[in-house]
């Protein structure tokens, strides 16, 4: 159809740190050595947390768990761009975000152990509890952003979800809402190439996920999600833009789920070892280490210290979590409504 072009949309991709540890200096965000080391330590801590969580689950000491292995840079890089006063709406695979924001580690173990109290977010942080139904947290992000805008609070709202999450109607409705009202939301999609057994290209036919933002009239960008500098930079710019009142941004973090979907899953049923192996070389922690090595920020000794510290912290968190008393059966009534209903009062007599 030889016709007039009335709109052209370019989808961009940001890469800074490559697999060999080299950076594109022109794009490199201003980060001090201490900040870079902080990144490395958070990456290590998160991975340590993750490995321990998987072990606990295997030992029957914890319930079903969704590993973040491979996605640490997407989570920590983006969370580092946020302030504690910002609001965060995670899905269920964002332990790295929680950890980066300073969420008490033992509470995360407690939550995955099947105890609601683990996601009672401490005052001073605004992280909404783990959201199990895929995509359904996106409207909350839009709403909180609308409220913040109305109240004149200069905060940003970060909303996390996966590639699969973009297929849900809620994602669409929320993106659209954010576009119409120019809301201060940063939508962060961790495209880890899989939604349980469904590969990215069977999830949606669009070439990139970033281009979905075109449907809502705001910017979408793809970043290398295993490149913590790129993730950090893209998120920081989006957060700043949100605070300035310039509306929402969509960020596709192109990454990979190295683990099974959850501990209840067996990824070997639907994907090849070769595919997983190919992604090993792209590991987000490895490449930061290579970068640090090249820049004199890394040594064997430092590595040992970082690992040991992480292990100590995680072990301590597990001890704390496991020492917490079992919730009272009556607790299941207490938070249904502000006050117990007459019927609940009768029902509680069973305990």
């Amino acid at each position, binding site marked *: 159809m030889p016709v007039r072009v009335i709109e052209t949309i370019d989808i961009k991709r940001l890469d800074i740190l490559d697999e060999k540890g080299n950076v594109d200096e022109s794009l490199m965000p201003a980060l001090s050595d201490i900040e870079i080391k902080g990144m490395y330590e958070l990456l290590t801590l998160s991975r340590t947390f993750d490995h321990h969580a998987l072990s606990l689950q295997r030992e029957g000491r914890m319930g079903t768990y969704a590993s973040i292995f491979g996605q640490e840079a997407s989570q920590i890089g983006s969370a580092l761009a946020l302030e504690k006063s910002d609001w965060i709406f995670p899905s269920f695979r964002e332990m790295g975000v929680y950890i980066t924001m300073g969420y008490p580690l033992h509470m995360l173990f407690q939550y995955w152990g099947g105890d609601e109290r683990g996601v009672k977010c401490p005052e001073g942080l605004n992280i909404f509890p783990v959201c199990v139904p895929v995509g359904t947290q996106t*409207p909350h992000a839009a*709403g909180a952003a*609308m*409220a913040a805008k109305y109240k004149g609070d200069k905060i940003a709202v970060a909303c996390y979800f996966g590639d699969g999450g973009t297929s849900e109607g*809620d994602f669409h*409705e929320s993106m*659209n809402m954010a576009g119409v009202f120019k809301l201060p939301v940063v939508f962060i999609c961790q495209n880890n190439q899989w939604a349980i057994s469904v590969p990215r290209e069977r999830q949606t036919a669009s070439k990139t996920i970033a281009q979905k933002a075109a449907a809502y009239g705001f910017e979408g960008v793809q970043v290398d999600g295993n490149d913590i500098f790129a993730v950090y930079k893209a998120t920081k710019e989006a957060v700043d833009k949100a605070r300035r009142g310039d509306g929402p941004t969509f960020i596709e973090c192109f990454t990979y789920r190295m683990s099974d979907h959850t501990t209840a899953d067996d990824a070997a049923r639907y994907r090849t070892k070769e595919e997983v192996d190919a992604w090993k070389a792209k590991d987000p922690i490895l490449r930061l280490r290579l970068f640090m090595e090249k820049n004199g920020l890394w040594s064997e000794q430092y590595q040992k210290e970082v690992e040991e510290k992480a292990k100590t912290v995680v072990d301590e968190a597990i001890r704390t979590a496991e020492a917490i008393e079992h919730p009272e059966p009556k607790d299941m009534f207490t938070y249904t*409504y502000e006050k117990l209903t007459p019927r609940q009062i009768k029902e509680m007599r069973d305990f």
Partner: protein
Amino acid sequence: MPKLNMVQAINLALREEMQRDKNVVILGEDVGRDGGVFRVTEGLLEEFGAERVIDTPLAESVIAGSAIGMALYGLKPIAEIQFMGFIYPAIDQIFSHAARVRSRSRGRFTCPIVVRAPYGAGIKAPELHSESTEALFCHMPGVKVVVPSSPYNAKGLLISSIRDPDPVIFLESTRLYRLIKEEVPEGEYAIPLGKARVVQEGKDITVISWGSMLHRSLQAVGGFDAEVIDLMTLNPFDEETIFKSVKKTGRVMIVHEASKTGGFGAEISATIAEDEILYLKAPIIRVTGYDVVMPLPKLEDYYIPTVERIRKGIEEAMKY
């Protein structure tokens, strides 16, 4: 005192609550410039501005879901669903989130939203404009359900719903919107949630109803010594008032517009059959809509319980 119809009474409640509390905001389809398709929000955009009376895109799930997000952030959003038949796309947000926010976060976050929706048949509207599926929402712990039957109690119940710290589904009978006028005071008065109202005392039979069916019930009880209860809040509902009445009358009839199977009449009946059966002299009668897909206008009047059907129900109970 001004005589208002239900549209005006609800509008007044909204206006006063918005004047009182800056955190109260309204969102929904056509609630702003158009003042709502039933004019319930008329004039509010002009008075409170587009940041507080928000015309949203056409998307019920994010209307409910963004209301939840606002509530988490500290606002008191009132979401309008244009007709109850269009609340189904929002059910996931209401059930999976609104109902569970408090419990999930052990009280760190709460969800004081009101979801208003016109409900019920009787105005000869198109398909899905006549739903009365209030029972669905009564089976989700964490949600409250309120159905006013008159302008006066619509205002008082809406004020309580807005101030309630938990999510409330507030259903407004389209048929009643302009049917009745009554004195509605200006200024604050709250009718507590969870309390029923004895509209008329009687000794022979307890007739329990709500919303639009209350009026048909009142028309039908003439000639009987019936105690008529307006349930007003369906979840959590006022067992005490019902039990007291049943103990006195020993006969019960429940009237609702929704189809019978799984309607909220079942819960009331079952509650009585569990706790007060020894006082019963007669079967518990339910007069309800039929177990059919809600018909289009040509058959609508045959679907809705008529005064005659309600009378027959009473007569049936009175045989015992």
